């Protein structure tokens, strides 16, 4: 019952209400739209706020304990991406390109989802580990790099076998290699990672004291800024509602089931690693979220053969609303249980059995 109540109260937060409102506005063909400059600015602002906040927290609590969660997050992200690929390719019967593009979209992280998660935790009066902002930054390119690498390998293999039989050209392989190098450079110097890492460092340098004078912009306006961005997200999701039919039943189910499994694994693993209640929720959310701002920009160049209508529509039209409306409160409830006194006793009991 408690989970339903959480979902219900989450449904009535400004973030979710404005998202739904945006969808309605798009459905009634309103010309409502957030001015372009602002909708481009907001993701940068959100990342700067996440980074500063994380950096300040890291100065207060230290980041020595960051290494293990970060490596685990990278490992899980890679594992999930490969798992997604197998499911999409074998069960979903998608072609190689679409499978890898979708696998990495769902293996990658969503910064907007992360922002909504932070705001949700704030509503619940719970904090999370600051170093998760750094995990967000590191995870951003991981899934894409893997998927692009795997695609290139598969394509190169195809070309080799083709050349053996009919004599193809060497230049095709060269094109593939160029793509990977370009993507590596672009994703590491891309604006999302640069602003996030820059803000983490600055947050760490300035600490709480230095953050004080700018907290009105980066702390108090944070949720309000998400709300404005949600209007835009809602409008875009609303415009794409027809496309969801084209996504098909299999991918629609995938877009809900996969984040749920990944997110739950994330919450449990984070709890086992000793992350806090809120930190475990954010860790789960990192693994559950799909990328819809970075993904098209990266994948359109790296795997142009994949259909963007599939990965954008499923990530933005299905997974994003599901994550912020349903999965986030569910993961919070699960994390509350795993961090409850009984669970800790059980945990100690289990651990006690080991020693």
């Amino acid at each position, binding site marked *: 019952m408690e989970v339903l109540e959480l979902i219900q109260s989450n449904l009535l937060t400004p973030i979710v209400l404005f998202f739904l409102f945006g969808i309605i506005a798009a459905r009634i063909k309103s010309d409502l739209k957030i001015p*372009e400059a602002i909708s481009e600015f907001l993701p940068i602002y959100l990342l700067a706020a996440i980074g500063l906040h994380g950096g300040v927290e890291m100065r207060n609590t230290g980041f020595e304990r960051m290494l293990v969660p970060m490596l685990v997050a990278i490992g899980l992200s890679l594992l999930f991406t490969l798992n997604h690929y197998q499911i999409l390719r074998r069960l979903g019967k998608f072609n190689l390109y679409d499978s890898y593009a979708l696998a990495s979209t769902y293996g990658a992280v969503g910064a907007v989802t992360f922002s909504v998660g932070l705001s949700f935790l704030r509503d619940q009066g719970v904090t999370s580990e600051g170093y998760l902002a750094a995990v967000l930054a590191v995870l951003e390119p991981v899934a894409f790099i893997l998927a692009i690498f795997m695609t290139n390998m598969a394509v190169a293999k195809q070309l080799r076998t083709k050349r053996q039989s009919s004599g193809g050209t060497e230049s095709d392989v060269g094109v593939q290699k160029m793509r990977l190098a370009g993507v590596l450079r672009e994703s590491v110097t891309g604006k999302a990672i640069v602003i996030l890492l820059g803000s983490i460092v600055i947050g760490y340098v300035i600490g709480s004291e230095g953050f004080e004078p700018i907290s009105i912009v980066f702390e108090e306006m944070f949720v309000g800024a998400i709300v404005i961005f949600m209007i835009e997200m809602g409008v*875009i999701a609303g*415009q794409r509602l027809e496309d969801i039919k084209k996504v098909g039943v299999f991918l629609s189910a995938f877009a809900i089931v996969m984040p749920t499994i990944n997110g739950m694994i994330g919450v449990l693993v984070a709890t086992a690693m000793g992350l806090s209640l809120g930190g475990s929720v954010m860790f789960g959310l990192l693994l559950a979220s799909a990328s819809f*701002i970075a993904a*098209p920009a990266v994948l359109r160049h790296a795997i142009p*053969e994949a259909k963007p209508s599939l990965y954008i529509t499923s990530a933005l039209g299905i997974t994003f609303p599901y994550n912020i409306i349903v999965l986030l409160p569910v993961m919070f409830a699960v994390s509350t249980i795993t961090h409850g006194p009984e669970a800790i006793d059980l945990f100690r009991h289990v651990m006690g059995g080991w020693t």
Partner: protein
Amino acid sequence: MDVKLYKVKLLTVVCEILAQKNVLGILERHDIRGYTTYEVHGKGARGIRGQGLQNEKNAKIEVIVREEKLSGVIEEISQTMFADYALVLYVSDVGVVRTEKF
């Protein structure tokens, strides 16, 4: 008025904005240094474009080229991009005053 106009070609490419970089790369490889780009909206075979996210816009690229270079550029664009990107290109005749610029 007795201005001498030299005949050159105007190549116009309308494509999804994420394909713009590829087109500009091809121009670079063919040693074409000058071009003009616009952000545009419109509707085509792949539906209405230009709504929503910045990545979903269309770009229009205009390049003035000498006729000798034109077929090489068009060939590379059609071979490497037609299959995967939303892209339309067309060529028109234009006259310029200073031919040494192109």
